[in-house]
């Protein structure tokens, strides 16, 4: 397989959008094309994450219409659906295709317009990524899935639930702090100085998760231009290389051995590290799937950044902040930046690359710029996991 680089990135403002998702996606593609300094005619295939477009705007087969809107011609354009990990699996497959030599330059990214559904129906459609035959009639929701994981986490590590809520609240405070500094974030200039009590006293959604433990519903799109690594320097002085990717699948919650240690994530992260020839110690920055505060803790442990049961304390101690052991979600994460589910994986890559270019907002930028970064994206109740490891220099042979 050839090495693959990201040479252009695009990202719309996250939050409530009046434009259609097809428009949002095209905007992010044009930004990425301009950023890369390439032409639309150079694009040979399009890989688009879009999780719930059929329910949001009555649109399926969106990838073909995106290719059409940009006059890309009759190139292959495919929609990817892996719930909240849709864009990441699209990017991973795009990298595979470029790596294989079939294409030299492609677009990968994603889009979503979840806010248009309203909370009740959005909660219903998101819950479609639960196991419909057995979890459907229970009336399970995504906050409930992670609430059950939090309950279990407290039990396993013998942490009083209120104490765990306090530790989890630090994830929300941190991610909102950075989201408030990010001009493309849904909560830009908002919620940037949350107090512990504000998080803990916010409306209960699914015990023990309250509203500020949860990411919002969001609209938005993000896109990347991928090309063969050997060509990358023709277009940019600052290519970022895809050093490793991993993907894992899970099943219904009741079939998991331990819902605080998702095998799908452990396996996916291991694959990505192995492919990159790196370990967690090498990674300088993370964008991980904090759909809920507890999710950030479970992710950090499953990926090997902290021992089992130690992430809660680590976050409280500031080890995941700027200057800490490993800065996590300096974009604001899903909680502060927003979570247009089909776009999130591309947004995570976007913000790692912004960091590598030293272009993140002051207060969010890691200094010196990170050499290696990693994304973690989760779909469903640990059903689809994807990891992407990025570096400023090519993979060591």
């Amino acid at each position: 397989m050839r090495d693959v680089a990201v040479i252009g990135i695009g990202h719309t403002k996250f939050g409530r959008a009046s434009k259609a998702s097809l428009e949002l996606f095209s905007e992010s593609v044009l930004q990425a094309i301009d950023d890369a300094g390439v032409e639309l005619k150079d694009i040979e295939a399009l890989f688009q994450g879009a999780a719930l477009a059929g329910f949001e705007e009555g649109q399926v087969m969106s990838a073909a219409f995106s290719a059409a809107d940009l006059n890309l011609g009759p190139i292959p354009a495919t929609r990817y659906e892996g719930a909240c990990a849709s864009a990441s699996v699209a990017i991973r497959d795009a990298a595979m295709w470029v790596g294989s030599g079939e294409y030299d330059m492609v677009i990968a990214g994603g889009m979503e317009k979840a806010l248009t559904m309203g909370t009740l129906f959005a909660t219903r459609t998101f819950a479609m990524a639960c196991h419909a035959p057995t979890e459907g009639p229970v009336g399970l929701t995504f906050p409930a899935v992670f609430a059950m994981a939090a309950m279990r986490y407290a039990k396993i590590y013998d942490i009083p639930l209120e104490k765990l809520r306090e530790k989890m609240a630090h994830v929300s405070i941190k991610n909102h702090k950075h989201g408030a500094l990010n001009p493309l974030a849904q909560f830009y200039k908002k919620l940037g100085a949350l107090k512990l009590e504000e998080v803990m006293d916010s409306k209960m959604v699914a015990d023990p998760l309250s509203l500020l433990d949860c990411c919002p519903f969001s609209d938005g799109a993000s896109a990347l231009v991928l090309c063969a690594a050997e060509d990358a320097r023709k277009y940019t002085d600052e290519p970022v290389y895809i050093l490793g990717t991993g993907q894992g699948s899970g099943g219904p919650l009741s079939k998991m051995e331990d819902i605080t240690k998702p095998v799908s994530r452990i396996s996916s992260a291991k694959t990505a590290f192995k492919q990159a020839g790196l370990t967690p110690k090498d990674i300088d920055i993370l964008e991980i799937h904090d759909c809920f505060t507890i999710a950030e803790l479970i992710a950090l442990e499953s990926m090997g950044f902290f021992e089992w049961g130690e992430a809660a304390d680590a976050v409280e101690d500031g080890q995941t902040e700027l200057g800490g052991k490993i800065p996590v979600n300096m974009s604001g994460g899903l909680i502060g930046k927003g979570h247009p589910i089909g776009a999130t994986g591309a947004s995570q890559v976007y913000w790692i690359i912004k960091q590598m270019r030293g272009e993140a907002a002051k207060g969010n930028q890691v200094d010196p710029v990170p050499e290696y970064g990693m994304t973690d994206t989760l779909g469903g109740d640990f059903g689809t996991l994807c990891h992407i490891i990025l570096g400023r220099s090519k993979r060591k042979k």
Partner: protein
Amino acid sequence: MAGMAQEEIEKELSTVYTVLTYADYEAGLKEERLLGLKCASCGKITCHPMHVCQWCSSRRLERVELCGEGELTTFTVIRVPPEGFEADVPYIPCIIETKEGPCVIGRLDYDAERATPELIGKQVKLSGAYTYEGDKYSGGAHTCPIFKLVG
């Protein structure tokens, strides 16, 4: 001459791949019976039903009835419901580790305002079934087990 005889084709098509369907599982719940599959290879129990043993992937499965008792491993109280469940709020989804081994998901029949983490580890037993009549997107009605504390 190339081609297969009708009888041969029909014989191939008559192979049973699904030993216990979701519909069978749900019908059992409505009669307060927890149905699963026993593996002839490893001896373990699969529940809810799958097409292979959830422990060893064997396809040598036979229907079996579980005792319906187990331990509560986790739960939550849902206060913000999905569309279609507004009238149920607050309600308690839970995961039960059955005495036979596999975990099943269901609802807990318990006062939501008194549901605290101390419930985890408590013994429960199957006490009924909850049927959601479904919306446009659920392919009809589906049923899950309801559990209550023992004693």
